[in-house]
């Protein structure tokens, strides 16, 4: 999966993965529990970013409602848990399948449109679910709901922060593995070809709509997985997890990291969280209360990436490696 340790890109990626793999040991050694919770959120968000990249990066479909899958996956866990179905063996597949089904519904309608209309429709569908969640009085409405974590018998205890982190990390690795295979498999090439020129792909005989819809469902499934994990991370669900701001953050992460590259979304997620967590106290140091406005610094940074590093962070580590799906 990692192209080569000899290329700067391969080396940087390997270092990052090793660092993430041993993070719980580090945070324990330095007694920084808070950092592990940030690390967990980074890993979960990276799964969502990788899943968005499947359609945004490889497919060229700017879906502006991807955080809805955080919500769908999260609420599947939360609602089942509320009704005393605490088994993860039931909760997790339900969360993933419902997310995939919802993605299919959204895709079936939105994929008939293009450009700005596509963006608006995906956003509208996400807002629809958001307001449904806000209206669910039984499940906490606006305030959300505290839930019990999923149970997997004696196999793993999700209340243990390190165990849960490692589970998320393994799932991230699995998601990356799948994405790396998918990008160079027949299916991925159809999706990427359609991004390049969908008219040409249709004229070659590909029913492009069908493949894009399948990619949408696939992307939704992995997004749902991220939502399932996010609900378990905080033992809490609320409509805020799928606000349109989160959808925007996910797009920013993918663009920042490098669209259509395998590890770009991971770089982007790490950069996004590290900047958020460091700019905040840094600005507060300068002047009490400024930390809240960290995006005033983050915004111009994004502009710089857009202007000078079009391929995102991934492009800073040398030329794309096509063989490995960095198309």
């Amino acid at each position, binding site marked *: 999966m990692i192209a080569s340790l000899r290329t700067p890109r391969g080396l940087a990626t390997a270092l990052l993965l090793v660092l993430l793999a041993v993070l719980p040991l580090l945070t324990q050694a330095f007694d920084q529990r808070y950092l592990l919770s940030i690390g967990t959120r980074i890993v979960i968000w990276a799964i969502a970013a990788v899943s968005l990249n499947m359609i945004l990066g490889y497919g060229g479909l700017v879906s502006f409602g991807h955080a809805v899958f955080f919500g769908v996956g999260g609420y599947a866990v939360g609602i089942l848990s509320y009704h005393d179905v605490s088994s993860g063996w039931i909760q997790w597949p339900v969360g993933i399948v419902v997310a995939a089904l919802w993605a299919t519904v959204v895709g079936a309608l939105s994929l008939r449109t293009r450009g700005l209309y596509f963006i608006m429709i995906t956003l509208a569908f996400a807002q629809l679910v958001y307001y449904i969640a806000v209206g669910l009085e039984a499940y906490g409405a606006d305030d959300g709901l505290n839930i019990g974590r999923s149970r997997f018998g004696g196999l793993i205890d999700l209340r243990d922060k390190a165990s849960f982190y490692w589970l998320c990390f393994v799932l991230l690795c699995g998601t990356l593995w*799948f994405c790396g*295979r*998918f990008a*160079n*498999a*027949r*299916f*991925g*090439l*159809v999706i*990427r*070809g359609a991004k*390049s*020129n969908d*008219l*040409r*792909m*249709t*004229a*070659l*005989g*590909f*029913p*492009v709509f069908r*493949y894009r819809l*399948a990619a949408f469902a696939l992307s939704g499934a992995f997004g749902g997985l991220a939502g399932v994990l996010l609900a378990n991370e905080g033992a809490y669900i609320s409509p805020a997890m799928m606000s349109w701001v989160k959808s925007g953050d996910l797009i920013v992460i993918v663009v920042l990291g490098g669209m259509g590259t395998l590890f770009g979304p991971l770089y982007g997620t790490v950069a996004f969280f590290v900047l958020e967590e460091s700019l905040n106290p840094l600005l507060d140091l300068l002047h009490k209360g400024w930390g809240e406005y960290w995006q005033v610094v983050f915004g111009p940074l994004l502009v710089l990436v857009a202007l000078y590093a079009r391929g995102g962070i991934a492009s800073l580590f040398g030329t794309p490696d096509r*063989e490995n799906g960095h*198309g």
Partner: protein
Amino acid sequence: MAEPLLATDRLVKRYGGLLATDNVSIEVLPGEIHALIGPNGAGKTTLVGQLTGNVSPDAGTIRFAGRDVTRLPTHARVRLGLARSFQITAVLREFTALDNVALAVQAHAGHSFRFLADARRDETLRGPARRGLADVGLAARADTPAAALSHGEQRQLEIAMALAGDPRLLLLDEPMAGMGAEESQHMVAFLRSLKGSRAMLLIEHDMDAVFQLADRITVLVYGRVIASGTPAEIRTNAAVRQAYLGEGAV
């Protein structure tokens, strides 16, 4: 007379008050090169769009390979053996020449819901793709990104992509557009080498090429067929000379 491979019957397409296709009935026989010519604005592009399925006609029918395909979507027509090249070069610019043709091969190799195996190492796709590239003389350019190919090479690549599925009818939308004299002659020679093995509907402005290649020619003016016949008949047809060739093209 052989059953026509492609036949339109009184095809009509209106854009507002403009009759872009006015009761057009044309036939392409198996194995023949049928040229469609006409001055700018004659409705050639609209007609091509209806044949490929990008534009839906207001009236009339299109039959292909013995089936009514009038309402069939583009990709399904391609599956039946109706391949096309584009007037404005349409290759997948970010992909290599070989990837382009391999994708064309893949389009005819069953469904593409395969998520894990590396398609770029799949000899059932790469092998035929390499042969297809060699056929159009691009073997040496296999690993070059399509965007880096010269205009003439991109046109050749388009033909290789159209041929990948072994189509029964090749719809060539101005294959010589933007080509120099030498490149054009190359293309004419190549198309002639394909003659007989598959039918072609050739839309072309280059009259030399048309008269060299075509078995039959249909002339379209203001959306209507004003003449159809052998190159010799078209050359001497008074209406054609007045409407079209009078412009000094021949």
